C-alpha cells in the first residue's frame, strides 16, 4: 500500500510538471497534448484501449510463461550436463549479442502478423535473464548442503543420486536466484511484445500507437503509452508479490548480520 501511495504521488508530480511544460512552453497539441486532453481520450476511447491492452497483455503473459519454461529447462540442462554446457553456453551468450530488434522483422515473417511473433519476441527477450539467473543459482548450491545429502544417500557412485539432490536441494536452493531473473523478465517482457507490434501487427497497444501516430492523434498515442506503462507496472508488482508469497523463507530485506550466512 505504501508503494502504491508513492507511485501515485510520483504520477501526480509528473502530471503537474507536464502541465507546466505545456502551459509555459506554448507547445502545439500535436507535439505535446496537455494531460487533460490525454485523460479525456483515456475515458472516451477506453473500449478500444482496453481491447488492445488485452491483446498486448496476453502476448506478454504468454511470452513470460513460455520464456520462463524454456529458460528453466535450459538452466537445468546446463547445470546437469557438461556437454550441454560446452555447446550451449557460448551460444547463449552469443545470442545476447544479437539485438532482438534486429530479428523482429524475421520473426514476423516466419510467425505472421498475429500473436505468435509477439509471444516469441517476449520469450526471446526474457530467455537470457531467466536462464542466466537460474543457472547461476543452480551452480552455487552451498557445499554443506550437498555434503549432508551425499552422506544421507547410500551408494558409492558420485553421480548416482544427482536427481534426488537436484530435486530436493539444488533446485529449491536456486529458486531465489530464479526469482531475481523473473523480476527482470517481468520488467523487460513488455518491450518484446510492443517491439513485435511495431514491426507488423493488426492489434495491440504498439499497433494502436503506430496507427494514432500516422493520423496525428497524439493524445491517443499518449493514452496508449500510459496504458502500456500501467500494464508494465502492474505486471511487475503482480510477479513480485507472487514470488514473495511463493518463497516466504527467502528474506526480502538484505541481512546485515554476516553470521546468518
Amino acid at each position, binding site marked *: 500500500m505504501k508503494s502504491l501511495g508513492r507511485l501515485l504521488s510520483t504520477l501526480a508530480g509528473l502530471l503537474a510538471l507536464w502541465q507546466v511544460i505545456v502551459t509555459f512552453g506554448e507547445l502545439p497539441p500535436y507535439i505535446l497534448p496537455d494531460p487533460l486532453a490525454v485523460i479525456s481520450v483515456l475515458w472516451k476511447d477506453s473500449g478500444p484501449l482496453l481491447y488492445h491492452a488485452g491483446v498486448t497483455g496476453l502476448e506478454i503473459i504468454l511470452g513470460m510463461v513460455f520464456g520462463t519454461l524454456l529458460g528453466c529447462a535450459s538452466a537445468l540442462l546446463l547445470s546437469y550436463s557438461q556437454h550441454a554446457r560446452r555447446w550451449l553456453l557460448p551460444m547463449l551468450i552469443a545470442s545476447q549479442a544479437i539485438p532482438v530488434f534486429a530479428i523482429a522483422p524475421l520473426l514476423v515473417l516466419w510467425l505472421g502478423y498475429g500473436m505468435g511473433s509477439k509471444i516469441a519476441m517476449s520469450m526471446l527477450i526474457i530467455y537470457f535473464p531467466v536462464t542466466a539467473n537460474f543457472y547461476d543459482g543452480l551452480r552455487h548450491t552451498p557445499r*554443506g548442503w550437498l*555434503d549432508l545429502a551425499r552422506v544421507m544417500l547410500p551408494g558409492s557412485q558420485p553421480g548416482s543420486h544427482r536427481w534426488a*539432490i537436484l530435486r530436493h536441494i539444488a533446485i*529449491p536452493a536456486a*529458486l531465489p536466484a530464479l526469482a531475481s531473473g523473473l523480476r527482470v523478465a517481468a520488467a523487460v517482457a513488455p518491450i518484446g511484445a510492443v517491439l513485435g507490434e511495431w514491426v507488423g501487427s493488426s492489434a495491440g497497444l504498439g499497433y494502436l500507437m503506430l496507427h494514432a501516430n500516422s493520423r496525428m492523434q497524439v493524445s491517443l498515442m499518449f493514452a496508449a503509452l500510459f496504458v502500456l506503462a500501467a500494464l508494465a507496472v502492474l505486471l511487475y508488482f503482480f510477479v513480485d508479490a507472487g514470488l514473495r508469497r511463493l518463497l516466504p523463507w527467502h528474506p526480502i530485506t538484505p541481512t546485515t548480520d554476516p553470521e546468518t550466512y
Partner: protein
Amino acid sequence: MPARPLSASPLSLAPPLAISLRSAHLTYGGLVLFDGLDLELPGGVFTCLLGPSGIGKSSLLRLLAGLTSPGVSGDLRGSDGRGLTGRVAYMAQQDLLLPWLSVLQNVTLGSRLRSEPANRGRALDLLAQVGLADSALVRPDTLSGGMRQRVALARTLMEDRPLVLMDEPFSGLDALTRLRLQALAAELLAGRTVLLVTHDPLEALRLGEQILVMNGRPATLSALPDLPGAPPRDPGDPALQAAYRAILRRLEAQ
C-alpha cells in the same frame, strides 16, 4: 509431548561398529598435511579429535564420511569388514537446515532424499528429546542458533547410523548454549561410535571417552590418558583442569 525412549531399531541391536582407518594421506595446496596416519575408533565409544585449525581434522572427518575431496586418500573399514557407505551420520559446524522446509521436514530430510516414507512419530520423539516438540511445524528461520543446532542434532539421530561424525558442531554457539548442547549430545549419543572434531580442549575433555590429539606437520595422532568419570564431565572438575594444561603443553610442544 513427553519424551519417550526411542524404539529400538535393528541397527541399535547390533554390536557397536568399530572403525579403522589405515595410511590416511592428505595433500593440500602442495603441502603434505598428514601421511600414513592410522586412526582407530572403538565401537560404542565417544572419541574426540583435538587439534589446531588447519591441521586437517575436517579433511580426516570428510574422509570417514565418504566425502571425496582431492588429495585425500586412506583405507577405511568397519569391524565387520564392510565399507562405511550408508552407515554414517554427519553433523557440521553450520546447522545446514534447509530454509524452505519445516523443522520436522528437516529432521526427516534423509527419507525425503531417499524417497522413503518418513517416520514422523520417531522424528517427533527426537524433537521432543531435544526440547523442540512445539517447534516441529515452524520454519528454521524463526529459531535461535542453539535451537537450530538442536534440530541438526535431531536430524543426525534420525538417520540412526552406527557411526556419527561431528565437525565442531557447537563452536558457533554461546558458552551456556554450548554446555547444554554438549550434555544433550553426550546423553543422546551414548552407546554409539562417535567421532567429534574440535579445536576446543574443554569440549574434548567434557565429552571424550577417548581423546586424540592431532598436531605436527605432517600431523600425527596421540591418545590422551583416560579421564575419570563419564561424560558429560563438569568443566570445573580439577582433574579436567590438570588435563587441560597437559593438552596445551602437548599442543604447544610441536
